[in-house]
């Protein structure tokens, strides 16, 4: 989904440092200071994780760190709520399958 470059109230996009993050093995550009969820959505990603029971996609829902549907594996750690976690240079982000252990990933991805 698009980034809002110019806005009638917020004005022009602020100059922010471009940083590189890795999403499922692919290099993606994000802006320093933004949340992981925002960076992913801006780059066209919407399905952040797949559920344990029904293997259904989940993504950005509550936006305040409460529902945990935006959880992904970040730098090897599962259940990171991407809507309240900010990107950092070189961050490694992966789709979380179920609870995040390797067996679940191999079963379904």
């Amino acid at each position, binding site marked *: 989904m698009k980034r809002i470059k110019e806005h009638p109230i917020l004005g022009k996009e602020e100059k922010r440092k471009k940083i590189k993050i890795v999403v499922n093995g692919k290099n993606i550009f994000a802006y320093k200071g933004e949340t992981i969820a925002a960076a992913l959505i801006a780059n066209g990603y919407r399905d952040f994780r797949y559920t*344990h029971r029904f293997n259904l996609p989940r993504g950005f829902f*509550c936006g305040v760190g*409460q*529902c*945990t*549907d935006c959880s992904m594996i970040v730098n090897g750690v599962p259940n990171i709520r991407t809507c309240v976690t900010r990107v950092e240079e070189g961050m490694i982000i992966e789709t979380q399958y179920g609870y995040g252990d390797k067996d679940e990933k191999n079963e379904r991805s």
Partner: protein
Amino acid sequence: MPKDNEKNSIKKIICRCEEITEEEIREAIREGYTTIKSIKRRTRAGMGLCQGRTCSTLIRDIIAEMTGDKKEDILSDTVRPPLYPVELGVLGKKNK
């Protein structure tokens, strides 16, 4: 809240974290589990990562609809610390 046809509730998830469907919750109520606490224990709805923050008002609505109880009489489950998840390593660390 608009009433839905029960037959559609099979596809409808109520507890997002544990993926408990509306049909499973209605079944639990039919079995006699008519409080948020007891439905949680019977179905796991409310035991997931958000600890019932998203689903408990939805479950309350279903209980009210099926039992006729007033919403104000359907109590939430007990809130216990820690309010947020804490890593065991942090809990166990020696602090000043």
